Protein backbone atom coordinates (compact mmCIF):
# COMPACT_ATOMS: atom_id res chain seq x y z
CA UNK A 1 0.00 0.00 0.00
CA UNK A 2 2.71 2.39 1.07
CA UNK A 3 4.67 1.45 -1.99
CA UNK A 4 1.66 2.07 -4.19
CA UNK A 5 1.12 5.52 -2.71
CA UNK A 6 4.74 6.47 -3.00
CA UNK A 7 4.82 5.25 -6.57
CA UNK A 8 1.80 7.31 -7.47
CA UNK A 9 3.27 10.30 -5.65
CA UNK A 10 6.46 9.88 -7.59
CA UNK A 11 4.51 9.84 -10.81
CA UNK A 12 2.60 12.94 -9.85
CA UNK A 13 5.71 14.84 -8.90
CA UNK A 14 7.41 13.68 -12.06
CA UNK A 15 4.39 15.00 -13.88
CA UNK A 16 4.55 18.28 -11.98
CA UNK A 17 8.19 18.70 -12.99
CA UNK A 18 7.12 18.65 -16.58
CA UNK A 19 3.81 20.47 -16.46
CA UNK A 20 5.49 23.55 -15.04
CA UNK A 21 7.19 24.21 -18.31
CA UNK A 22 5.10 22.75 -21.05
CA UNK A 23 8.20 22.69 -23.23
CA UNK A 24 7.64 19.11 -24.20
CA UNK A 25 4.94 19.26 -26.80
CA UNK A 26 4.86 15.55 -27.64
CA UNK A 27 1.52 14.11 -28.62
CA UNK A 28 -0.38 13.59 -25.38
CA UNK A 29 -4.09 13.00 -25.28
CA UNK A 30 -6.52 15.04 -23.24
CA UNK A 31 -7.93 13.34 -20.18
CA UNK A 32 -11.50 14.57 -20.07
CA UNK A 33 -11.92 13.84 -16.34
CA UNK A 34 -8.84 15.80 -15.31
CA UNK A 35 -9.63 18.58 -17.74
CA UNK A 36 -13.18 18.88 -16.41
CA UNK A 37 -11.98 19.16 -12.84
CA UNK A 38 -9.30 21.69 -13.77
CA UNK A 39 -11.85 23.80 -15.65
CA UNK A 40 -14.08 23.66 -12.59
CA UNK A 41 -11.18 24.58 -10.30
CA UNK A 42 -10.28 27.50 -12.53
CA UNK A 43 -13.80 28.85 -12.18
CA UNK A 44 -13.81 28.18 -8.43
CA UNK A 45 -10.61 30.17 -7.88
CA UNK A 46 -12.03 33.12 -9.81
CA UNK A 47 -15.12 32.91 -7.59
CA UNK A 48 -12.82 33.72 -4.66
CA UNK A 49 -12.16 37.20 -6.04
CA UNK A 50 -15.77 38.47 -5.75
CA UNK A 51 -15.76 36.52 -2.47
CA UNK A 52 -12.80 38.57 -1.31
CA UNK A 53 -14.49 41.74 -2.55
CA UNK A 54 -17.51 40.93 -0.38
CA UNK A 55 -15.35 39.92 2.58
CA UNK A 56 -13.33 43.14 2.49
CA UNK A 57 -16.26 45.30 1.35
CA UNK A 58 -18.35 44.34 4.34
CA UNK A 59 -15.54 45.19 6.74
CA UNK A 60 -14.97 48.81 5.71
CA UNK A 61 -17.14 51.81 6.45
CA UNK A 62 -20.19 52.53 4.29
CA UNK A 63 -18.48 55.35 2.42
CA UNK A 64 -15.69 53.04 1.21
CA UNK A 65 -17.55 49.89 0.22
CA UNK A 66 -17.45 50.40 -3.56
CA UNK A 67 -13.84 51.56 -3.48
CA UNK A 68 -12.83 48.49 -1.50
CA UNK A 69 -14.74 46.02 -3.68
CA UNK A 70 -13.22 47.69 -6.72
CA UNK A 71 -9.75 46.80 -5.40
CA UNK A 72 -10.61 43.14 -5.89
CA UNK A 73 -12.39 43.63 -9.20
CA UNK A 74 -9.57 45.85 -10.49
CA UNK A 75 -7.21 42.92 -9.94
CA UNK A 76 -9.47 40.81 -12.18
CA UNK A 77 -9.27 43.55 -14.77
CA UNK A 78 -5.59 44.53 -14.60
CA UNK A 79 -4.04 41.13 -13.96
CA UNK A 80 -6.61 39.59 -16.29
CA UNK A 81 -4.98 41.64 -19.05
CA UNK A 82 -1.38 41.32 -17.88
CA UNK A 83 -1.30 37.59 -17.21
CA UNK A 84 -1.95 36.17 -20.69
CA UNK A 85 0.13 38.97 -22.17
CA UNK A 86 3.32 38.56 -20.14
CA UNK A 87 2.59 37.16 -16.67
CA UNK A 88 2.39 33.50 -17.69
CA UNK A 89 5.62 33.76 -19.62
CA UNK A 90 7.40 35.55 -16.77
CA UNK A 91 6.24 32.91 -14.31
CA UNK A 92 6.35 29.66 -16.23
CA UNK A 93 8.70 30.33 -19.11
CA UNK A 94 12.20 28.85 -18.89
CA UNK A 95 14.43 30.80 -16.50
CA UNK A 96 16.37 33.81 -17.74
CA UNK A 97 18.64 36.26 -15.91
CA UNK A 98 20.15 33.37 -13.95
CA UNK A 99 16.77 31.93 -13.05
CA UNK A 100 15.50 35.20 -11.57
CA UNK A 101 12.40 35.11 -13.74
CA UNK A 102 11.03 33.12 -16.64
CA UNK A 103 10.53 34.19 -20.22
CA UNK A 104 9.61 32.55 -23.46
CA UNK A 105 8.46 34.70 -26.40
CA UNK A 106 6.10 31.96 -27.53
CA UNK A 107 4.00 32.51 -24.40
CA UNK A 108 3.42 36.18 -25.22
CA UNK A 109 -0.37 36.49 -25.56
CA UNK A 110 -0.36 32.70 -25.07
CA UNK A 111 0.24 32.42 -28.80
CA UNK A 112 2.41 29.31 -28.60
CA UNK A 113 0.07 27.05 -26.68
CA UNK A 114 -2.85 26.89 -29.06
CA UNK A 115 -2.30 23.20 -29.70
CA UNK A 116 -0.51 22.16 -26.54
CA UNK A 117 -1.77 19.29 -24.44
CA UNK A 118 0.39 19.02 -21.32
CA UNK A 119 1.80 15.80 -19.92
CA UNK A 120 -0.82 16.05 -17.18
CA UNK A 121 -3.34 15.45 -19.98
CA UNK A 122 -4.95 18.87 -19.86
CA UNK A 123 -4.75 21.57 -22.52
CA UNK A 124 -2.13 24.13 -21.54
CA UNK A 125 -4.80 26.82 -21.87
CA UNK A 126 -6.47 25.35 -18.79
CA UNK A 127 -3.24 25.42 -16.79
CA UNK A 128 -2.44 28.98 -17.90
CA UNK A 129 -5.91 30.18 -16.95
CA UNK A 130 -5.87 28.27 -13.64
CA UNK A 131 -2.55 29.91 -12.71
CA UNK A 132 -3.90 33.25 -13.92
CA UNK A 133 -6.57 33.17 -11.22
CA UNK A 134 -3.87 32.85 -8.56
CA UNK A 135 -2.08 35.81 -10.07
CA UNK A 136 -5.34 37.79 -9.86
CA UNK A 137 -6.26 37.07 -6.27
CA UNK A 138 -2.77 37.61 -4.82
CA UNK A 139 -2.45 41.38 -5.33
CA UNK A 140 -6.14 41.75 -4.38
CA UNK A 141 -5.30 40.32 -0.95
CA UNK A 142 -2.84 43.15 -0.29
CA UNK A 143 -5.62 45.73 -0.57
CA UNK A 144 -6.90 44.74 2.87
CA UNK A 145 -3.88 46.39 4.49
CA UNK A 146 -4.38 49.82 2.98
CA UNK A 147 -8.17 49.85 2.72
CA UNK A 148 -10.02 53.15 2.89
CA UNK A 149 -7.05 55.38 2.06
CA UNK A 150 -5.51 54.73 -1.36
CA UNK A 151 -5.79 56.43 -4.70
CA UNK A 152 -7.46 54.15 -7.23
CA UNK A 153 -5.11 55.01 -10.10
CA UNK A 154 -2.07 54.59 -7.86
CA UNK A 155 -3.44 51.22 -6.77
CA UNK A 156 -3.82 50.09 -10.39
CA UNK A 157 -0.21 50.95 -11.16
CA UNK A 158 0.98 49.33 -7.96
CA UNK A 159 -0.70 45.96 -8.54
CA UNK A 160 0.49 45.88 -12.15
CA UNK A 161 4.12 46.51 -11.14
CA UNK A 162 3.82 44.19 -8.16
CA UNK A 163 2.47 41.35 -10.28
CA UNK A 164 5.36 41.66 -12.73
CA UNK A 165 8.19 42.27 -10.28
CA UNK A 166 7.13 40.39 -7.14
CA UNK A 167 4.53 37.75 -7.99
CA UNK A 168 6.03 36.42 -11.21
CA UNK A 169 9.60 35.96 -9.88
CA UNK A 170 8.45 34.22 -6.69
CA UNK A 171 5.99 32.08 -8.67
CA UNK A 172 8.84 31.15 -11.02
CA UNK A 173 11.21 30.18 -8.18
CA UNK A 174 8.64 28.08 -6.37
CA UNK A 175 6.55 26.47 -9.10
CA UNK A 176 8.41 26.47 -12.40
CA UNK A 177 10.27 23.22 -13.08
CA UNK A 178 13.58 25.05 -13.17
CA UNK A 179 12.82 27.37 -10.24
CA UNK A 180 15.54 27.22 -7.58
CA UNK A 181 13.12 26.79 -4.65
CA UNK A 182 11.29 24.06 -6.58
CA UNK A 183 14.59 22.20 -6.64
CA UNK A 184 15.83 22.99 -3.13
CA UNK A 185 16.45 19.77 -1.16
CA UNK A 186 15.54 16.34 -2.48
CA UNK A 187 11.92 17.17 -3.27
CA UNK A 188 11.90 20.93 -3.26
CA UNK A 189 10.47 23.51 -0.90
CA UNK A 190 6.92 22.41 -0.19
CA UNK A 191 4.38 24.92 -1.42
CA UNK A 192 1.43 22.97 -2.72
CA UNK A 193 -0.99 25.76 -3.61
CA UNK A 194 0.62 29.06 -2.75
CA UNK A 195 1.69 29.53 0.88
CA UNK A 196 4.78 31.47 -0.15
CA UNK A 197 3.76 32.52 -3.65
CA UNK A 198 0.32 33.82 -2.71
CA UNK A 199 -0.12 34.33 1.01
CA UNK A 200 3.33 35.19 2.36
CA UNK A 201 4.19 37.42 -0.59
CA UNK A 202 0.91 39.36 -0.35
CA UNK A 203 0.81 39.33 3.46
CA UNK A 204 4.31 40.73 3.86
CA UNK A 205 3.66 43.34 1.20
CA UNK A 206 0.50 44.24 3.11
CA UNK A 207 2.50 44.92 6.26
CA UNK A 208 5.07 47.00 4.38
CA UNK A 209 2.28 48.96 2.68
CA UNK A 210 0.43 49.59 5.95
CA UNK A 211 3.64 50.91 7.53
CA UNK A 212 4.62 52.94 4.47
CA UNK A 213 1.23 54.61 3.95
CA UNK A 214 0.48 55.20 7.61
CA UNK A 215 -2.78 54.75 9.46
CA UNK A 216 -6.20 55.87 8.35
CA UNK A 217 -7.29 59.25 9.60
CA UNK A 218 -8.47 58.87 13.17
CA UNK A 219 -7.02 55.36 13.67
CA UNK A 220 -6.91 53.93 16.32
CA UNK A 221 -8.71 56.62 18.34
CA UNK A 222 -11.97 56.42 16.37
CA UNK A 223 -13.89 53.18 16.14
CA UNK A 224 -14.43 52.16 12.53
CA UNK A 225 -17.37 49.82 12.34
CA UNK A 226 -17.82 47.31 9.51
CA UNK A 227 -20.48 48.45 7.07
CA UNK A 228 -22.05 45.04 6.57
CA UNK A 229 -20.98 41.86 8.34
CA UNK A 230 -23.65 39.93 6.46
CA UNK A 231 -21.75 40.59 3.24
CA UNK A 232 -18.49 39.67 4.97
CA UNK A 233 -19.96 36.31 5.97
CA UNK A 234 -21.13 35.61 2.42
CA UNK A 235 -17.67 36.52 1.20
CA UNK A 236 -16.01 34.18 3.69
CA UNK A 237 -18.35 31.42 2.52
CA UNK A 238 -17.46 32.00 -1.13
CA UNK A 239 -13.77 31.96 -0.23
CA UNK A 240 -14.15 28.62 1.53
CA UNK A 241 -15.97 27.11 -1.46
CA UNK A 242 -13.51 28.61 -3.93
CA UNK A 243 -10.59 27.28 -1.91
CA UNK A 244 -11.47 23.72 -2.97
CA UNK A 245 -10.53 24.76 -6.49
CA UNK A 246 -7.49 26.62 -5.18
CA UNK A 247 -6.07 23.63 -3.26
CA UNK A 248 -7.60 20.52 -4.81
CA UNK A 249 -7.02 22.01 -8.25
CA UNK A 250 -3.34 22.52 -7.48
CA UNK A 251 -2.74 18.79 -7.82
CA UNK A 252 -3.28 19.39 -11.58
CA UNK A 253 -4.96 16.02 -11.56
CA UNK A 254 -8.20 14.32 -10.68
CA UNK A 255 -7.05 11.48 -8.50
CA UNK A 256 -5.93 10.51 -5.01
CA UNK A 257 -3.92 13.70 -4.53
CA UNK A 258 -6.97 15.77 -5.40
CA UNK A 259 -9.01 13.90 -2.83
CA UNK A 260 -6.32 14.36 -0.18
CA UNK A 261 -6.01 18.07 -0.85
CA UNK A 262 -9.78 18.56 -0.73
CA UNK A 263 -10.11 16.64 2.53
CA UNK A 264 -7.37 18.47 4.39
CA UNK A 265 -8.63 21.81 3.07
CA UNK A 266 -12.07 21.16 4.52
CA UNK A 267 -10.62 20.01 7.85
CA UNK A 268 -8.20 22.89 8.31
CA UNK A 269 -10.89 25.47 7.57
CA UNK A 270 -13.27 23.95 10.10
CA UNK A 271 -10.52 23.47 12.66
CA UNK A 272 -9.35 27.06 12.25
CA UNK A 273 -12.87 28.44 12.66
CA UNK A 274 -13.55 26.17 15.64
CA UNK A 275 -10.33 27.22 17.37
CA UNK A 276 -10.92 30.92 16.77
CA UNK A 277 -14.44 30.60 18.16
CA UNK A 278 -13.16 28.80 21.28
CA UNK A 279 -10.52 31.49 21.84
CA UNK A 280 -13.24 34.14 21.63
CA UNK A 281 -15.46 32.24 24.06
CA UNK A 282 -12.59 32.14 26.55
CA UNK A 283 -11.45 35.69 25.89
CA UNK A 284 -14.73 37.60 25.49
CA UNK A 285 -17.49 35.14 26.32
CA UNK A 286 -19.06 35.55 22.87
CA UNK A 287 -18.29 33.97 19.53
CA UNK A 288 -18.43 36.60 16.80
CA UNK A 289 -19.22 36.18 13.11
CA UNK A 290 -16.03 38.03 12.18
CA UNK A 291 -14.11 35.67 14.45
CA UNK A 292 -15.52 32.63 12.67
CA UNK A 293 -14.77 34.19 9.27
CA UNK A 294 -11.21 35.00 10.37
CA UNK A 295 -10.71 31.47 11.72
CA UNK A 296 -11.94 29.96 8.44
CA UNK A 297 -9.42 32.07 6.54
CA UNK A 298 -6.55 31.39 8.96
CA UNK A 299 -7.12 27.64 8.60
CA UNK A 300 -7.42 27.83 4.81
CA UNK A 301 -4.30 29.97 4.46
CA UNK A 302 -2.25 27.61 6.66
CA UNK A 303 -3.30 24.47 4.76
CA UNK A 304 -2.60 26.03 1.37
CA UNK A 305 1.12 25.16 1.20
CA UNK A 306 0.52 21.88 3.03
CA UNK A 307 -2.45 20.37 1.22
CA UNK A 308 -0.29 17.97 -0.78
CA UNK A 309 1.76 16.53 2.07
CA UNK A 310 -0.17 16.47 5.34
CA UNK A 311 -2.74 13.96 6.54
CA UNK A 312 -6.06 14.88 8.17
CA UNK A 313 -4.65 15.00 11.72
CA UNK A 314 -1.97 17.39 10.52
CA UNK A 315 -4.61 19.53 8.81
CA UNK A 316 -6.56 19.72 12.04
CA UNK A 317 -3.41 20.78 13.91
CA UNK A 318 -2.37 23.34 11.27
CA UNK A 319 -5.81 24.99 11.33
CA UNK A 320 -5.74 25.25 15.11
CA UNK A 321 -2.15 26.52 15.33
CA UNK A 322 -2.81 29.09 12.61
CA UNK A 323 -5.86 30.45 14.42
CA UNK A 324 -4.01 30.78 17.73
CA UNK A 325 -1.00 32.53 16.18
CA UNK A 326 -3.08 34.78 13.88
CA UNK A 327 -5.26 35.77 16.85
CA UNK A 328 -2.13 36.72 18.81
CA UNK A 329 -0.74 38.59 15.80
CA UNK A 330 -3.90 40.67 15.50
CA UNK A 331 -3.83 41.45 19.22
CA UNK A 332 -0.19 42.47 18.84
CA UNK A 333 -1.19 44.77 15.98
CA UNK A 334 -3.39 46.66 18.42
CA UNK A 335 -0.42 47.04 20.77
CA UNK A 336 2.02 48.12 18.06
CA UNK A 337 -0.49 50.51 16.52
CA UNK A 338 0.12 50.01 12.79
CA UNK A 339 -3.01 50.06 10.66
CA UNK A 340 -3.27 46.80 8.72
CA UNK A 341 -6.93 47.71 8.30
CA UNK A 342 -8.44 44.35 7.37
CA UNK A 343 -5.62 42.16 8.71
CA UNK A 344 -4.15 41.12 5.39
CA UNK A 345 -0.80 40.56 7.14
CA UNK A 346 -2.35 39.23 10.35
CA UNK A 347 -4.18 36.44 8.51
CA UNK A 348 -2.44 35.88 5.16
CA UNK A 349 1.13 36.77 6.10
CA UNK A 350 1.17 35.16 9.51
CA UNK A 351 -1.08 32.24 8.52
CA UNK A 352 1.03 31.58 5.43
CA UNK A 353 4.25 31.52 7.43
CA UNK A 354 2.68 29.25 10.06
CA UNK A 355 1.52 26.85 7.35
CA UNK A 356 4.79 26.79 5.43
CA UNK A 357 6.87 26.20 8.58
CA UNK A 358 4.66 23.96 10.72
CA UNK A 359 3.64 21.67 7.85
CA UNK A 360 7.11 20.17 8.19
CA UNK A 361 6.07 18.37 11.37
CA UNK A 362 3.02 16.75 9.78
CA UNK A 363 4.37 15.45 6.46
CA UNK A 364 3.06 11.98 5.63
CA UNK A 365 5.72 9.29 6.21
CA UNK A 366 5.69 8.08 2.60
CA UNK A 367 6.73 11.55 1.40
CA UNK A 368 9.61 11.68 3.86
CA UNK A 369 10.67 8.15 2.96
CA UNK A 370 10.75 9.07 -0.68
CA UNK A 371 12.76 12.21 0.03
CA UNK A 372 15.17 10.18 2.12
CA UNK A 373 15.59 7.75 -0.75
CA UNK A 374 16.74 10.52 -3.04
CA UNK A 375 19.79 11.65 -1.08
CA UNK A 376 22.60 9.67 0.41
CA UNK A 377 22.37 9.71 4.21
CA UNK A 378 18.60 10.17 4.35
CA UNK A 379 16.47 13.23 4.87
CA UNK A 380 15.16 14.39 8.22
CA UNK A 381 12.32 16.62 9.32
CA UNK A 382 14.81 19.21 10.52
CA UNK A 383 16.49 19.30 7.11
CA UNK A 384 13.14 19.87 5.41
CA UNK A 385 12.42 22.53 8.03
CA UNK A 386 15.59 24.25 6.88
CA UNK A 387 14.36 24.15 3.27
CA UNK A 388 10.96 25.55 4.30
CA UNK A 389 12.53 28.30 6.40
CA UNK A 390 14.79 29.23 3.49
CA UNK A 391 11.82 29.51 1.12
CA UNK A 392 9.88 31.60 3.66
CA UNK A 393 12.89 33.80 4.43
CA UNK A 394 13.63 34.48 0.77
CA UNK A 395 9.97 35.27 0.04
CA UNK A 396 9.69 37.62 3.03
CA UNK A 397 12.92 39.43 2.23
CA UNK A 398 12.31 39.75 -1.50
CA UNK A 399 8.63 40.75 -1.27
CA UNK A 400 9.23 43.36 1.43
CA UNK A 401 12.21 45.05 -0.22
CA UNK A 402 10.78 45.19 -3.75
CA UNK A 403 7.33 46.19 -2.52
CA UNK A 404 8.80 49.06 -0.54
CA UNK A 405 10.56 50.32 -3.67
CA UNK A 406 7.36 50.00 -5.73
CA UNK A 407 5.30 51.78 -3.07
CA UNK A 408 7.83 54.59 -3.05
CA UNK A 409 7.78 54.92 -6.85
CA UNK A 410 3.97 54.91 -7.07
CA UNK A 411 3.64 57.38 -4.20
CA UNK A 412 6.10 59.77 -5.86
CA UNK A 413 4.54 59.53 -9.34
CA UNK A 414 0.77 58.98 -9.43
CA UNK A 415 0.35 59.11 -5.66
CA UNK A 416 -1.00 56.28 -3.54
CA UNK A 417 -2.14 57.81 -0.27
CA UNK A 418 -5.18 60.00 -0.86
CA UNK A 419 -5.61 63.48 0.62
CA UNK A 420 -7.42 64.14 3.86
CA UNK A 421 -10.50 65.61 2.16
CA UNK A 422 -10.93 62.63 -0.14
CA UNK A 423 -10.40 60.23 2.72
CA UNK A 424 -13.08 61.94 4.80
CA UNK A 425 -15.53 61.89 1.89
CA UNK A 426 -14.80 58.23 1.32
CA UNK A 427 -13.37 56.32 -1.63
CA UNK A 428 -16.81 55.75 -3.19
CA UNK A 429 -17.38 59.45 -3.70
CA UNK A 430 -13.82 60.66 -4.20
CA UNK A 431 -12.44 57.85 -6.40
CA UNK A 432 -15.48 56.52 -8.21
CA UNK A 433 -18.26 59.11 -7.95
CA UNK A 434 -20.62 56.39 -6.84
CA UNK A 435 -22.11 55.01 -3.69
CA UNK A 436 -22.68 51.52 -2.39
CA UNK A 437 -25.83 50.18 -0.82
CA UNK A 438 -28.05 51.98 -3.35
CA UNK A 439 -30.98 49.76 -2.45
CA UNK A 440 -31.52 51.46 0.89
CA UNK A 441 -32.56 54.59 -0.97
CA UNK A 442 -36.20 54.89 -1.99
CA UNK A 443 -35.22 54.69 -5.65
Amino acid sequence: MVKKISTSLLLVFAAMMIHGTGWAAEAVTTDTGTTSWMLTSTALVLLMVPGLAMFYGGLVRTKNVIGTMMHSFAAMVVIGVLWPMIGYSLSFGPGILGGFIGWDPKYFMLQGIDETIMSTHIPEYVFAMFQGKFAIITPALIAGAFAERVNFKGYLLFIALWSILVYSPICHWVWAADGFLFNLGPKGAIDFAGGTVVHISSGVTALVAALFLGARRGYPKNVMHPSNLVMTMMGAGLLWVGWFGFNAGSAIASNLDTARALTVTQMAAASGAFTWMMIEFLHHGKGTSLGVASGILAGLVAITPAAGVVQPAGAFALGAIASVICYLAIMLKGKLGYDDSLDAFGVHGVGGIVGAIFLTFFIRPSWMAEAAGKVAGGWTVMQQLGVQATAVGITVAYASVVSLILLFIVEKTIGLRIGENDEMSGLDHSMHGEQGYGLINPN
Partner: protein
Amino acid sequence: MKLITAIIQTDRLDHVREALIQADITRITVSRVAGHGRQEDIEYYRGQKIAPSLLPKVRLDIAVNDQFVDITVDTIIKAAKHGMGEIGDGKIFITPMEECIRIRTNERGGTAI
Protein backbone atom coordinates in the same frame (compact mmCIF):
# COMPACT_ATOMS: atom_id res chain seq x y z
CA MET B 1 -34.61 75.55 22.78
CA LYS B 2 -34.40 74.97 19.07
CA LEU B 3 -34.34 71.91 16.84
CA ILE B 4 -31.86 72.30 14.02
CA THR B 5 -32.39 70.02 11.06
CA ALA B 6 -29.72 70.02 8.38
CA ILE B 7 -29.89 68.25 5.02
CA ILE B 8 -26.39 67.86 3.58
CA GLN B 9 -24.49 65.93 0.93
CA THR B 10 -23.41 62.44 1.96
CA ASP B 11 -19.73 63.05 1.24
CA ARG B 12 -19.61 65.96 3.71
CA LEU B 13 -20.93 63.97 6.68
CA ASP B 14 -17.56 63.36 8.30
CA HIS B 15 -16.46 66.95 7.71
CA VAL B 16 -19.60 68.29 9.43
CA ARG B 17 -19.50 65.74 12.21
CA GLU B 18 -15.90 66.47 13.08
CA ALA B 19 -16.41 70.23 12.89
CA LEU B 20 -19.38 69.96 15.24
CA ILE B 21 -17.37 67.92 17.71
CA GLN B 22 -14.60 70.54 17.54
CA ALA B 23 -17.23 73.18 18.35
CA ASP B 24 -18.40 71.10 21.33
CA ILE B 25 -21.71 70.15 19.71
CA THR B 26 -21.56 66.43 20.35
CA ARG B 27 -25.17 65.31 20.69
CA ILE B 28 -26.45 64.69 17.20
CA THR B 29 -28.68 62.26 15.35
CA VAL B 30 -27.81 61.28 11.79
CA SER B 31 -30.00 59.55 9.22
CA ARG B 32 -29.70 58.68 5.58
CA VAL B 33 -32.55 60.18 3.61
CA ALA B 34 -33.44 60.82 0.00
CA GLY B 35 -35.03 63.77 -1.69
CA HIS B 36 -34.67 66.46 -4.28
CA GLY B 37 -34.29 70.19 -4.10
CA ARG B 38 -34.88 72.76 -6.78
CA GLN B 39 -34.63 70.51 -9.80
CA GLU B 40 -36.72 72.02 -12.53
CA ASP B 41 -35.86 69.65 -15.31
CA ILE B 42 -38.69 67.19 -15.59
CA GLU B 43 -37.20 64.12 -17.22
CA TYR B 44 -38.68 62.32 -20.18
CA TYR B 45 -38.50 58.56 -20.41
CA ARG B 46 -39.87 56.97 -23.59
CA GLY B 47 -42.18 59.90 -24.10
CA GLN B 48 -43.54 59.84 -20.56
CA LYS B 49 -43.06 62.79 -18.25
CA ILE B 50 -41.46 61.55 -15.04
CA ALA B 51 -40.43 63.18 -11.80
CA PRO B 52 -36.74 63.78 -11.20
CA SER B 53 -35.05 60.95 -9.35
CA LEU B 54 -34.48 61.08 -5.63
CA LEU B 55 -30.96 61.77 -4.50
CA PRO B 56 -29.41 60.40 -1.33
CA LYS B 57 -28.72 62.96 1.39
CA VAL B 58 -27.74 62.94 5.02
CA ARG B 59 -29.99 64.49 7.63
CA LEU B 60 -28.74 65.76 10.98
CA ASP B 61 -31.08 66.51 13.86
CA ILE B 62 -29.56 68.59 16.63
CA ALA B 63 -31.45 69.93 19.63
CA VAL B 64 -29.72 72.95 21.16
CA ASN B 65 -30.28 75.66 23.73
CA ASP B 66 -30.77 79.08 22.17
CA GLN B 67 -27.26 80.36 22.77
CA PHE B 68 -25.80 77.47 20.72
CA VAL B 69 -27.92 78.02 17.61
CA ASP B 70 -25.49 80.36 15.86
CA ILE B 71 -22.34 78.33 16.46
CA THR B 72 -24.11 75.16 15.32
CA VAL B 73 -25.47 76.71 12.16
CA ASP B 74 -22.18 78.44 11.29
CA THR B 75 -20.24 75.25 11.82
CA ILE B 76 -22.56 73.24 9.58
CA ILE B 77 -22.50 75.85 6.81
CA LYS B 78 -18.71 76.01 6.84
CA ALA B 79 -18.17 72.27 6.83
CA ALA B 80 -20.97 71.22 4.48
CA LYS B 81 -20.12 73.60 1.67
CA HIS B 82 -18.24 72.30 -1.39
CA GLY B 83 -15.61 74.90 -2.22
CA MET B 84 -17.36 78.25 -2.66
CA GLY B 85 -20.75 76.59 -2.56
CA GLU B 86 -22.48 74.35 -5.09
CA ILE B 87 -26.05 73.49 -5.98
CA GLY B 88 -27.09 70.61 -3.76
CA ASP B 89 -25.00 71.58 -0.74
CA GLY B 90 -28.15 71.41 1.35
CA LYS B 91 -30.40 73.32 3.71
CA ILE B 92 -30.79 74.01 7.39
CA PHE B 93 -34.18 74.28 9.09
CA ILE B 94 -34.58 75.74 12.57
CA THR B 95 -37.77 75.07 14.51
CA PRO B 96 -38.77 76.05 18.03
CA MET B 97 -38.72 73.11 20.39
CA GLU B 98 -41.34 72.81 23.08
CA GLU B 99 -39.75 70.30 25.39
CA CYS B 100 -36.77 68.01 25.82
CA ILE B 101 -36.82 65.02 28.13
CA ARG B 102 -33.98 62.71 29.09
CA ILE B 103 -35.55 59.26 29.31
CA ARG B 104 -33.10 57.88 31.88
CA THR B 105 -33.67 60.58 34.51
CA ASN B 106 -36.98 62.11 33.46
CA GLU B 107 -35.09 65.45 33.47
CA ARG B 108 -36.83 68.17 31.45
CA GLY B 109 -35.90 71.39 29.66
CA GLY B 110 -32.57 72.94 28.77
CA THR B 111 -30.44 70.75 31.04
CA ALA B 112 -31.75 67.61 29.38
CA ILE B 113 -30.22 68.55 26.03
